[in-house]
């Protein structure tokens, strides 16, 4: 069969398996790529710390790049969340850098970890958890119940579904975008092997860099919007 997924390298492959309490658990390519992304970020953070320990008044070179990154991340959080920004700069900055590096890792021949629903769904659940906690903190229990029964009490199930759809739609959006890019590149390399010289670079720029950066921005933007909405006490 032409499209048997064996010769197209976009599926998640198991690397090795082990037994834990009677269950067979697989270490897959997603875990490996995730580990590589984490290690890259950890090494980068050590270099960054080293550079900032001997920081100069007038930044040069690497320090300049670091300040640019931090200022950009703080800028988007400040402009979206206003007075609540200072509590969320760290979280938003972290997930921004993590998702961006994950999406860009497709350029290096890795399978982007964000093209695995097991990676993006926890990110969506994290957003949902933060939103729910902030809702209970700022609107109190009475406010949350009032918000759920918004126009009339029998609206409750629809409002509940709307709340629980947030993490699912957030994570599916990121997952499907990155997966579609991965599949498209795998199709180009797998089926057009003979003529796939140089020009797939253009597709890489679109699918990996442009789409990856936009989806990172959208994920963080929507997370911030949902959290701001939860803290809106009126």
């Amino acid at each position, binding site marked *: 069969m032409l*499209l048997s*997924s064996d010769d197209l390298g976009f*599926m998640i492959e198991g690397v090795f398996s082990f037994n834990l309490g009677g269950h067979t658990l697989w270490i897959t390519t997603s875990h490996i790529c995730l580990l590589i992304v984490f290690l890259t970020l950890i090494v980068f953070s050590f270099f960054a710390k080293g550079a900032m320990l001997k920081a100069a008044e007038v930044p040069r070179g690497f320090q300049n790049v670091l300040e640019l990154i931090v200022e950009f991340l703080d800028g988007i959080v400040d402009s979206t969340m206003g007075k609540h920004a200072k509590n969320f700069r760290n979280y938003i900055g972290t997930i921004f850098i993590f998702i961006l590096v994950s999406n860009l890792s497709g350029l290096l021949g890795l399978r982007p970890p964000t093209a695995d629903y097991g990676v993006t769904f926890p990110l969506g659940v994290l957003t949902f958890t933060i939103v729910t906690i902030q809702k209970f903190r700022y609107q109190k229990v009475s406010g949350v119940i009032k918000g759920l029964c918004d126009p009339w009490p029998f609206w409750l199930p629809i409002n509940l579904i709307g709340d629980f759809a947030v993490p699912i*739609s957030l994570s*599916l*959006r990121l997952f*499907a*975008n990155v*997966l*579609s890019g991965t*599949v498209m590149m795998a199709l180009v390399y797998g089926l057009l092997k003979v003529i796939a010289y140089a020009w797939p670079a253009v597709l890489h720029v679109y699918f990996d860099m442009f789409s990856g950066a*936009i*989806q990172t*921005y*959208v994920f963080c*933007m*929507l997370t911030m919007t949902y959290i701001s909405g939860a803290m809106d006490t009126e």
Partner: protein
Amino acid sequence: MNFTGSGEMFNDAFILGCSAIGAGLAVIAGIGPGVGQGIAAGHAAAAVGRNPGAKGDVTSTMLLGQAVAETTGLYGLLVAMLLMFVHPFKTN
């Protein structure tokens, strides 16, 4: 998935063929986001024409809206990929 009077081979081929047709139909969902993103881009172009100074803000707002509008199309794509590569209806 047990059709009376049909062999295992026929059954699998039938399911694969229907999955492929279903995948093709699911990707039609791409029409919606295409039209929506086009409308957003058109209005953004008009906005930049009226106020060229706000080009940066208009572009980032447009991209954010388009990325959100893209979601429904991606759901269709996801269904198509499940049908094509995961074969959820195959018996074995």
